[in-house]
Every structure is written in structure tokens, then in C-alpha cells.
């Protein structure tokens, strides 16, 4: 018979042996002690993730000072834990032990009492590096799901907020929580998310990106299918708009569904500054993305296929700059883009104390010296640098933009100016036909939803945002009512 299915009996040594057989790892320890009248007790726990101090103070101490309880209920009355559960079989007790909650066994009492003394080393709640804002909250999610849930609860103090948890991963048993607002989020979306998560049988889930791939309708797509955020304020704002969220234990990145491409052009700060400023910033981001994608490609196409694209004076300057360069414009730009990607990748991974030296190498050697040596031209360096910087105005899309940019350069270098248009058309057709959870990816532009344009590339004032986005199919549409609003005539 499978040991894990066996029930925990009344004999303490047998129970301890059973649990140690299931959990033979050396970090699973047994702390034995006796009650006042000499009954043996044991707490089986995992070293490193159990709060031993609480275990001793709140469980062992009261039991050693009192007579042996006759039942689990009696035992619970002696203990000072707010979180206690019963575990009747070895498997459930073992999984709790591995989660950091020790199992308390008392000789003569069947089963175990699981004590909530999990103490996992977690980092502090700090500002996430990928979503820095000048104005607004600076908190970010961390790896502990309980803390993350707390951060969400702090912002939405409503009984309508639901956090439905599941465990995913045969070995990791990662806690995944589907977060939504009852009455606001479309129940069909929530159901589908839960079904997709429940259908997964995987060994382990190290990060929320695994769950994101299971939730995506086209997991092989280059474009995101699931929204991500590290900020609780953004997460809550998305819930309030009608989306559903997913928190994954062990990952600071929360997921939101449904996802639209336009949300990556929005930033939390847009809601904390003047709407005009926010609109300009969003349009700037769009322009930056276009520069990042198209500038290198048009530079290549102009030199190889259509000189007329460049004004005469600029053409002369560029032409003077590329005299004697051994590579053709397309190859030159391609290699520079590859070098840029290598630099970016290296800068992410390199230790901080080496960063200064390597940035000098990157700037001087790859930039200045390469130009002086006549290996690459200055205009190409400028184009690549501008494109690289522009891509980072929308950090969530940087990975996608890097790949698509190189595709554009290859197309521009082989097919020419028309190739750029064809690739743009192809990408647009692809994005237009990508729907996820009933929401088109390019909404509210295509299909056009006029009401939702107020908070897309444009940002209107807060009084205009009376309704939730129409693209989400939730029932409760109103999100803002202002009583007795007096318009200022001054």
C-alpha cells in the first residue's frame, strides 16, 4: 500500500516513522517533547522554512506545561496558533510539512495538527525595476503570494474581491491564485482561466510565465497574449476595469487577462499627471516604437532601393560617412543590431563591478574605434542607438520589438521598401485576428470602440472615465459617479 495514503494512527513512533519514510530528506526534522504528564509529542517540520521560535513558544511550551490532551480539539485549545488544520493521512501532513507548516503529533491521538508557522525568507517590498515611476506608489509584488495578496487586499477592501487558489505542479505544488471582482469581472473569463490552470499537469511552476503560456490562446506567438505587471496599484486598477488577475507563488510578476496591446503603451504615472501630459507621453511612446521598428529598416531601404527618401543634403552626409565601409548597408545594420542585442544581454547579466569597464569597451571600442577604423559608419551607429533606446520606452514590448526590428531589416535589405509595407500588413493582419478571452488584441482601435478610446493612446480627464472599458463583457459598467459636481467658472 502506498505509504502516503496511510492514515496517521494513534501511535506516535509509527506516525513519525511513516512521515520520515515519506520525507527522508535531511532537512525534515523531528522535535520531540513530552507533556506535563509524560505523554510523548513530536513536531515534524522542514528546517529553513519553519518558524522554530513560534513552534517552540506557541506549541511546545504550552503542551509541556499542561496535561496531555485527549483529542485534537483539546490540543488546539492549548495552542496559540491562529492557523491550525487537521491532517488525517500522511500525504496531506507531508505536503503541509513541505510547505513550512509543521505537523504536531501527540501519542494516543490519531491524526496530526498542522500548525501555520511558515516562515519563508522573502525580500522586502520595493519598487520594481521594470516599472519605475516618478509619481505614484512605489510598491511592487514580491515572490511570496501571501504578501502579494495582502498588497491587493490593502487596495481593494471589498467583499467582492475573490482570490480562488489552486495548486499547480506535481512536485512544486505552487499556489496559484485567480483574483477577480465578483460582479465586475466576466464570470466566463474567470471560469476559463480556472479550467486552463486546472487542466495543467506539470512537474513544477517556477514562475508566472509558465502559467501565462498555459493561459495564452497562441502560446507560440511572438506577441504577448497575457498582461503582466509587478505593481499592485496597476494590478488593482486592471481588476477594477474588469480584468481577472493571476498571482503565482514564487513570482513577483502578476498576470492579467484579457490583454490588449494598447495597455503596454500606458503607464501608471499617466494617471497621476495632467491628462495632456499623459496623452503626449503616450503618443511619444507610440512614435518611439515606430522609430524603433522602422528607422533601421527605412535607412537600409533608402540606401539600397530608394535614395529619394533621403533629402539631398542628408544623402550627401550619409554617403560621405559610408565611403569605404566594407559591408553593404543592410549587413552593416544587421550586425550592429546583433551587437546591440549582445550588449544588452551582457549588461543584464554582468556583475556590477564589471559594468563600468564593459560599458567603456562598448562605447569606445564598438562605437568610436569601429567608426575610425572604417568598419562601420557613424550614421549606422546613430540609427541603431536611437532605435535601441526608443524600444525601451515600452519595456514590456522590448523583446518583441527586438526580434521584429531585425525581421524588418532583413526584409528591407532583401525585398526593399515594399517589403517593409508587406511585413507591416502581415503583422497587422496577425494582430487583428488575435482574440483572447473574447477581447481583440488591438481593441479599442480595431474593432473601433469609441468609448474606450478615451483611455487608450489619448488620456482624457478623470470625469470622462465614467464607465469601465466596453471591450470587457462584465455586467457592472459604471465606475464613476460624481454627486453635486460644481463646474468652476473662474
Amino acid at each position, binding site marked *: 500500500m502506498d505509504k502516503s495514503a496511510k492514515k496517521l494512527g494513534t501511535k506516535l513512533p509509527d506516525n513519525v516513522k511513516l512521515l520520515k519514510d515519506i520525507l527522508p530528506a535531511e532537512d525534515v526534522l523531528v522535535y520531540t517533547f513530552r507533556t506535563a504528564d509524560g505523554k510523548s509529542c513530536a513536531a515534524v517540520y522542514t528546517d529553513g522554512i519553519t518558524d522554530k521560535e513560534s513552534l517552540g513558544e506557541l506549541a511546545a511550551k504550552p503542551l509541556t506545561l499542561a496535561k496531555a490532551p485527549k483529542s485534537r480539539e483539546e490540543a488546539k485549545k492549548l495552542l496559540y496558533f491562529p492557523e491550525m488544520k487537521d491532517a488525517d493521512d500522511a500525504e496531506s501532513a507531508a505536503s503541509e510539512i513541505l510547505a513550512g507548516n509543521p505537523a504536531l503529533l501527540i501519542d494516543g491521538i490519531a491524526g496530526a495538527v498542522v500548525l501555520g508557522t511558515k516562515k519563508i525568507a522573502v525580500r522586502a517590498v520595493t519598487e520594481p525595476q521594470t516599472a519605475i515611476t516618478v509619481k505614484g506608489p512605489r510598491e511592487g509584488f514580491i515572490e511570496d503570494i501571501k504578501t502579494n495578496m495582502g498588497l491587493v487586499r490593502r487596495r481593494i477592501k471589498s467583499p467582492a474581491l475573490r482570490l480562488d487558489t489552486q495548486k499547480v505542479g506535481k512536485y512544486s505544488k505552487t499556489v496559484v491564485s485567480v483574483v477577480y471582482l465578483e460582479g465586475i469581472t466576466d464570470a466566463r473569463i474567470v471560469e476559463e482561466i480556472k479550467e486552463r490552470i486546472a487542466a495543467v499537469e506539470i512537474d513544477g511552476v517556477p514562475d508566472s510565465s509558465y502559467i501565462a503560456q498555459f493561459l495564452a490562446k497562441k502560446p507560440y506567438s511572438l506577441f504577448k497574449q497575457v498582461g503582466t505587471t509587478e505593481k499592485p496599484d496597476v494590478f488593482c486598477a486592471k481588476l477594477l476595469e474588469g480584468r481577472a488577475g493571476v498571482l503565482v507563488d514564487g513570482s513577483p510578476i502578476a498576470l492579467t487577462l484579457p490583454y490588449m496591446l494598447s495597455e503596454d503603451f500606458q503607464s501608471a504615472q499617466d494617471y497621476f499627471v495632467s491628462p495632456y501630459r499623459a496623452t503626449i507621453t503616450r503618443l511619444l511612446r507610440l512614435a518611439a516604437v515606430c522609430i524603433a521598428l522602422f528607422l533601421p529598416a527605412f535607412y537600409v531601404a533608402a*540606401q*539600397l*532601393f530608394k*535614395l*529619394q527618401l533621403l533629402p*539631398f543634403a542628408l*544623402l*550627401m*552626409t*550619409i*554617403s*560621405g560617412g*559610408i*565611403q569605404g*565601409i566594407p559591408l*553593404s*548597408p*543592410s*549587413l552593416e545594420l*544587421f550586425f550592429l543590431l546583433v551587437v546591440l542585442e549582445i550588449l544588452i544581454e551582457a549588461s543584464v547579466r554582468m556583475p556590477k563591478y564589471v559594468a563600468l569597464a564593459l560599458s567603456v569597451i562598448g562605447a569606445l571600442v564598438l562605437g568610436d574605434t569601429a567608426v575610425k577604423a572604417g568598419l562601420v559608419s557613424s550614421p549606422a551607429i546613430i540609427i541603431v542607438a536611437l532605435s535601441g533606446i526608443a524600444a525601451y520606452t515600452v519595456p514590456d514590448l522590448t523583446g518583441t520589438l527586438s526580434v521584429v526590428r531585425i525581421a524588418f531589416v*532583413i*526584409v528591407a*535589405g*532583401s*525585398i526593399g521598401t515594399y517589403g517593409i509595407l508587406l511585413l507591416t500588413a502581415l503583422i497587422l493582419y496577425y494582430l487583428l485576428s488575435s482574440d483572447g478571452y473574447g477581447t481583440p488584441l488591438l481593441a479599442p482601435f480595431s474593432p473601433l470602440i469609441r468609448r474606450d478610446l478615451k483611455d487608450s493612446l489619448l488620456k482624457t480627464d478623470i470625469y470622462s472615465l465614467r464607465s469601465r472599458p466596453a471591450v470587457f463583457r462584465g455586467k457592472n459598467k459604471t465606475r464613476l459617479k460624481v454627486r453635486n459636481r460644481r463646474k468652476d467658472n473662474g
Partner: protein
Amino acid sequence: MNKFWSWVFLIAAGALVLLFFSNDFGLIDIQKTAIVAAIGIDRSEEAEGRWSVTAQIAVPDANANKASNVSIPSAETVGAGIAEVNRKTGWYPTLVHCRLILLGEDVAEGDVFRVLGYFLRSEFVEDSCLVAVCEGRAQEMLGASSPVGELTTMAIAKVLSSEAQKTGLVCVTNLRDFAKGYYSAAKSGYLPFLARLPEAESGGPSEGGGGSADGGQTGGSASGGSGQSGSGGNADVFDASKTMLFYEGKRAAVLEAAETLAFNLAETSTDFAFGEVVAEENGEPVTFSLKMKISQKSRALALEGGVPICSFRIRANAQIADADTAAGLDEAAKKTIVPGSVLRAAEREFEEQLTAILKKCADSGCDLFGLKQALYRNFPREYDAYEKTLLSSARAAYDIRFSTLH
């Protein structure tokens, strides 16, 4: 099915990458391209009925732009001449940035569209390029050096720019407008008549307009260093104040500078100009330089009693810029107020110049003011009756008023 699409994608991507890296797509690399900034066309001195084509190629340089002139002394057609540039220099000439087509004076004796037809047919030459006729040979004109050290083409283009047009000194036209006139019922047009005045002294060896190019000057003569030719180290100044009239593509007449100014003030987009007028002051003839601002201008054709009347209505404000007499303090202070006699003299001068232009048009057959077009558009039924005699029978009516600022 997914596997199928994966294979399709891989094959397509592979083909694209192969094309990209092979770079063998019939591409013309910018480094092998000769960017032609101007084309000069003359009659060939070597053979009758053939053409001499001069291409001014902009040569990019780290510090400044230089130009290299490549001449093909004898070509059957202009297209053949330009193709010869490729054969002789090894560069592929591209005319997309060709800003100027310069015709030699001898070309204008025949139908200029024998040579301009190439540019109209080609999709790769912009019909917005400037067209001009020059005194003497276009090859020499393109070999001239500019006093500000830039490409000759740029210097000429500045003289023929829309800014110059606005001041009325030059009649600017582009290939499209000239071709429209040629193919219209009037078969008429005009081109600025460019002349070279070797006046200005340049500060040092001039880089523009005559620097020798790097390589590729075999065959036809590549005129370089024209700063040395003709002006003894001095730069040249270009003047386009005269205008050549064309009828059926051939030279018909030439307007002098004053006539050009009058035509611009009456007809084109000129709305601000300087002009000189002689008026009597205290019994002595005094020359006044006037600043003129045209506030209103129109030209209309009417048929009155079977006689075509071409009426000009012009309203302008004038101010005295200078006079060739010592002005008293009072007069100098009141410079905005122009004496009536001067205004009337200006009106008379204007009318005289317009009359002279109309006479030249009648004599040469060049319908400069588009009277035939106006007749066709506004009086289509009478067009056939008046078409042939319109220019000679048309009478001018002037309603020209110059006002002074108060």
C-alpha cells in the same frame, strides 16, 4: 497542420535570409551610385545632329561636397549620353536628385523637347526639377565656380529658387510647367535665361563647382577646376534676370530684366519687388528705387464687340527705398509717402513694359499670358474663330494703381 505552417515559415525565413545575405538582387549600392545634381545639354561640336551631355555629379566628401562634371561630347540622344556616363565612369548615375536641367543657347534654336522628352518619359527624374537656358554652352556654365564654395548646381538653384521668384527678379519654371505650356493649345512657355558674370573674388581655392572627382573621368572630358578656367581664380556670379520665350519649343524672344520684372509682378507669384522708375522732380529727372508690394493682381480676357480685350488689374503699395538725389531731412523722414508723380511714373513704366511684352508675344507667337487658354476655358464656342489671330488682335486694358503708405 501546425507542423505544416512551421515548415512553411522556416522555408520562407530561410529564403529571405539567403536573399538578404547574398545581396544579389540587382541592387545598386549607394557606394556605386553617381548622384547627378544637374544635367547640361548642348549641341555636339563633334557631330551634326548629336548632343553633348554634361552631368554634374555630387561627390560626397567628409568636409564638404564637391562636384565632378562628366561630359559626353557626342551622344545620339540624351538617354544614350547618360547611359554613356555609366559606361565611362563605372558609376551608375541616378537622376532622382537632379535639380537642374540646363540647356545651352544653341539647343534653344531648335525644339527643346527633342532633349527634354527624355526627362518627361523617365519615372526616375522628377518633373519638379528646374529648367533654364544659359548663355553659351551649358558645359561651361556647369563648370563655373560659386563664390560661396558650394556646388554650381546649388548656386544656380538659389538664383532660380522660389524665393528669387517672389522678389520678381527671375522667372522660375520647372519641367512640368514648361511641358504643360508646350503641350497646351498655346504651345508656349518661358525659361529663365542664365548668364554668368565673372565678378566676385573668392577667398581661396574654391571647392564647389569644379573640384575634380575621384576616378571615373575617362572618355568624355570631365571638366574640373573651372575656377581656373575663364575667371582667373575668381568665382562667378549667376544672373537670370532675362527670360527666354518659347513657341513650339523653339526660342521666340527674350525679355529684358525690366520686362521680366513687369511680367512677374503681373502674372506670377511675385508679390514683393524692387524696381526703378524715373520721375521729374523740380524739372529734373530723378531715378527712384521703389519697394513695391502687390496687394491684388488679376488678368482677364473678354470679348467686346468681337475684339479680344486682355485686361490687367493690379493694385500695389509703394515705398521709396532710394533716390539718386540728395533728399532733404523732411523727405527722408517721410520715406513711406511717395509723391504722386512718382506713383504715376511707376504706373506708366509698368504699362509700357507690359505693352512691350505683349508686342513681343504677338511678334513671336508666344502666348506668355495664356490668352489662348483663357479663351478656350471661358469662350469655348469662340475659340476656333479667334485662336489664330488672338495674340495679334488682342488689345490690352490696364487698371494699374500704385498707392503710397500713409
